[in-house]
């Protein structure tokens, strides 16, 4: 097929106009030749014979008249064994194999190692009927079973003509030959390519999420649980702990694969992941965390158009692993930077702006992206999931801005980080009152909790939330009327909410023990705290009340730092019991 050619006719920053000499498609990829350096770009608008392309690199030095060659395909990624533990840029270039300290433009590296051999086991035999996304073989990627599938682009029914016997193969070797209904034979390798902006939908059914995903973070798991295959977002002003929270979730979540899209954020944050993850243990398998992690990083100083692509690249890789029946957690930090990339381009295209100069279709783009997450039943009966949590960096910390509002409509969990909590070092700074999880209202999820945590769990959680709310109201009254101006019961109410806050909601992400709180421990602690909240104490003065709860909180905090049910743990527990019975006697 003859490739369409063109010539550069105009340049505004990374938006380039190309006079084309043949057919071009929207979102088609092209390469601009600048004195031998090939700059990758994507068509984003076509008028007459001019194609507007966004260049994924710096356009410095580009001239009118530079040659352009169109590739006849959209932006694609390579899918195959070896994705995990790799570090990619937004266009899936392997950062580890790039030469030099600096990222030189026009320098593209292969996503997968073509030399590495993988131990392949066939899952079909000759004569079997297969179609796109059917599992035909398996390799071990770390400890994960990585399924080799019929390429997603194969749209017919096929017969297996040949399947490689168990053995070691590279991603470039033929492992199967499939014949289409006309008898034409197709050679299949372990790696395949897929356009990032097209969802991979080779599944039978996408049910409503029906089970919770454990993250080890109490304020999420206990108070606002996220479902496996669910969506959530974390808006928060800078300095409120978005990134620390995301890292905590990624280290602990009960999933098979972690994808982190560092989208337009700080390079040092990515470096932190590079440095820490290989050393960290997956708390469930004991293997290195890096083995189940892929990082797609397009930091804030990398070209802005590739930033937009990076979240799609991550989602596509996630869908690939979901199609193998694995549980994937995708974290994107931050989707606001992605939206800003869209805005920069929309500005340069001189489109009429929507609110805050964002493009008009921003909410649709956001919800379209969130909709790609989900729990699915595959055609072969297995199931897989993508749980997606995005962060949002609202301008000025104001949640009434287009990205936050657009995301609120799309995501089911809302983890609002509050500046006030961050200022008083109450981390994670998830606001217990503004945040919500819609999943707590799902009958499927309630049933799941009834079975796993007991029927009293969900009502108890709702009661806990109510205690926090009432505590806040009491606190406001105390502030208006003064310590002595309100009944002591107000102080009691306020300090019960503080007890929940300090013991359950706050968690030390930098403490080895406290940072990961398994569900059984969460249940134990929450029931203990709620047991105290249900008790009536007869305080004479508010001072007595304050001292009592402060003592309790201190003991509970020490308890959070100890090993669950260790001798130390129980000694603090006894200390608490003692305080309670002393108090009781007192009355």
């Amino acid at each position, binding site marked *: 097929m003859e490739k369409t050619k063109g010539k550069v*006719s*105009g*340049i*505004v*920053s990374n938006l380039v*106009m190309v006079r084309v000499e043949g057919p071009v498609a929207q979102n088609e990829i092209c390469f601009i030749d600048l004195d031998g350096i090939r700059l990758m770009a994507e068509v984003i608008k076509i008028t007459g014979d001019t194609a507007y392309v966004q260049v994924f690199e710096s*356009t*410095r*030095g*580009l*001239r*009118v*008249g530079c040659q352009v060659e169109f590739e006849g395909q959209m932006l694609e990624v390579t899918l195959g064994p070896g994705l995990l533990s790799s*570090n990619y840029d937004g266009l899936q270039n392997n*950062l580890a194999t790039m030469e*030099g*300290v*600096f*990222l*030189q433009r026009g320098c593209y590296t292969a996503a997968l190692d073509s030399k590495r051999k993988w131990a392949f086991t066939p899952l079909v035999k000759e004569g079997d009927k297969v179609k796109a996304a059917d599992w035909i073989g398996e390799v071990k990627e770390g400890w994960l079973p990585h399924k080799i599938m019929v390429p997603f682009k194969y749209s017919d029914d096929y017969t297996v003509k040949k399947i490689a016997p168990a053995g070691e193969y590279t991603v470039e070797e033929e492992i199967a030959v499939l014949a289409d209904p006309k008898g034409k034979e197709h050679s299949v390798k372990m790696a395949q390519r897929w356009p990032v902006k097209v969802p991979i939908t080779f599944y039978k059914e996408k049910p409503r999420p029906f089970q919770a995903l454990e993250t080890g973070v109490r304020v999420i798991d206990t108070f606002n649980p996220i479902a496996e295959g669910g969506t959530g977002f974390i808006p928060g*002003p*800078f*300095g409120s702990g978005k990134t620390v929270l995301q890292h905590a979730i990624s280290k602990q979540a009960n999933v098979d694969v972690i994808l982190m899209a560092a989208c*337009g954020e*700080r*390079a*040092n944050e990515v*470096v*932190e992941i*590079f*440095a820490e993850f290989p050393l960290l243990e997956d708390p469930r398998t004991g293997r290195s965390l890096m083995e189940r992690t892929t990082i797609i*990083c397009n*930091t*804030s*100083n*990398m070209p*802005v158009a590739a930033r937009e692509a990076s979240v799609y690249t991550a989602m596509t890789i996630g869908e690939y692993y979901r199609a193998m029946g694995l549980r994937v957690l995708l974290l994107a930090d931050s989707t606001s930077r992605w939206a*800003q990339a869209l*805005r*920069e381009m929309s*500005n340069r295209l*001189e489109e009429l*702006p929507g609110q*805050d*100069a*964002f493009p008009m279709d921003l909410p649709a783009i956001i919800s379209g992206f969130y909709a790609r997450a989900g729990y699915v039943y595959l055609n072969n009966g297995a199931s897989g999931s993508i749980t997606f949590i995005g962060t949002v960096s609202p*301008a*000025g*910390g104001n949640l009434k801005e287009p990205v936050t509002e657009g995301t609120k409509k799309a995501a089911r969990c809302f983890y609002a980080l509050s500046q006030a909590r961050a200022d*008083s*070092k109450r981390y994670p700074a998830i606001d217990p009152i503004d945040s919500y999880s819609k999943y707590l209202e799902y009958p499927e999820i309630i049933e799941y909790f009834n079975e796993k945590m007991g029927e009293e769990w969900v009502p108890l959680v709702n009661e806990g939330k109510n205690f926090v709310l009432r505590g806040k109201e009491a606190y406001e009254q105390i*502030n208006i009327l*003064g*310590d*002595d*101006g309100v009944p002591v019961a107000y102080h009691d109410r306020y300090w019960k909410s503080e007890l929940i806050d300090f013991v359950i909601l706050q968690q030390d992400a930098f403490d080895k023990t406290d940072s990961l709180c398994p569900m059984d421990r969460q249940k134990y602690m929450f029931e203990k705290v709620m047991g105290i909240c249900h008790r009536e104490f007869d305080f004479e003065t508010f*001072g007595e009340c*304050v001292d009592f709860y*402060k003592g309790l909180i*201190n003991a509970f905090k020490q308890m959070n730092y100890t090993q669950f049910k260790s001798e130390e743990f129980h000694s603090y527990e006894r200390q608490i019991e003692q305080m309670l019975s002393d108090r009781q006697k007192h009355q």
Partner: protein
Amino acid sequence: MQTNKAFQRIYTRLEAVTKATVTVRAQEVSNDELAMVGDRLAQVVKINGDRVTLQVFAGTEGLATDTEVCFTGRVPGLKVGDDLSGRFFDAYGNPIDGGARTEGEWREIGGPSVNPMKRKQPSQLIPTGIAGIDLNNTLVSGQKIPFFADPDQPYNQVMCMVALRAKVDKIILGGMGLTNDDYLFFKKSFENAGALDKIICFVNTTEQPPVERLLVPDMALTAAEYFAVDKNEKVLVLLTDMTLYADALSIVSNRMDQIPSKDSMPGSLYSDLAKIYEKAVQLPSGGSITILAVTTLSGGDITHAIPDNTGYITEGQLFLRNDSDVNKVIVDPFRSLSRLKQLVIGKQTREDHPQVMNAAVRLYADAANAKTKLENGFELSDYDERTLAFAKDYSANILAIDINIDTTEMLDRIWRMFAAYFTQTEVAIKKELMDRYWPQ
């Protein structure tokens, strides 16, 4: 910028002139290329067929439509070499200290960014002696952090003090819209400290055209990259004032009829600022670039687009505030933050650092609540009274910017304050630390 005109492409008809840009019909022009418009330096910012728009750094006052436009065929650059040390330059890299032009290898400014995989995680503490920084908001080499300050606060003085106390090989000052007085202040301070040999300055003062400022950070950082990458040196870059830099960005984008986003800033503000700040780096070879910047605020408003975008890019921010209770300028412990401090505190400093720091800030917050109570006319409890007394002590002897002690002394001082004002339960620190450090 000297050019040999005989080989240059020269055009003499300006099609359009705005306050900051000119448009000329020209061929074979490349994006970002420099040109001389008359005797003024300009840079290509937009090409549409043969219509080329240039941003004129010195402004367009008095430019006639028949002014000669001469393209140089090169992008903005700087000659880098060891003889940059101790020198003062303007925004174009021309000496302003009366010395000779520097020699050395020509490098383009605003070049590519470091591959994140070739970075090293920052891990070296930069001590400043100021407890409000070292204790609560520790600086780490390879970090980028701005002072958020109102124009009346002594941010340049504090920054200068920090720079001179920090143990680094080079200090590079990028001055944007500096008043001449402040420029002379920096010059004098560096001279007095006898530190001139490790100083390099690129300065645009208020007397010079604002658009020129756009070159300053890239000039300073290109010099910084030379010393950090080629020479493995520890470089500290001071950028003051980034708000004025952003203002210059908005002037240019406005003249190019771009649609403004929040606070009439260009939609690309985040990326523009990130390109500068992300030059901060710790390299595995030992070289590093640390950026200390100033973002002036209007009435402490951090929701304005400039500080807001900055906060999302930088690794924390330092807030200066005048504490009327002790009549000193302090580093505000609530609004200041160093994101990288976790990498060094309790590791390169004493083990009790993180917990002591948090407990002190928490008690200081209790004092703020007590103060509100007092102002609202309520009676204070004994605890409230004690927090207020603590806050005064803490503010005057820890947070004030005139403190100059090492971190161990800072921690000891706070333990003494804890013991003087509180019980162990009120301080609520891990018991083993309490047992070890609580003054007997």
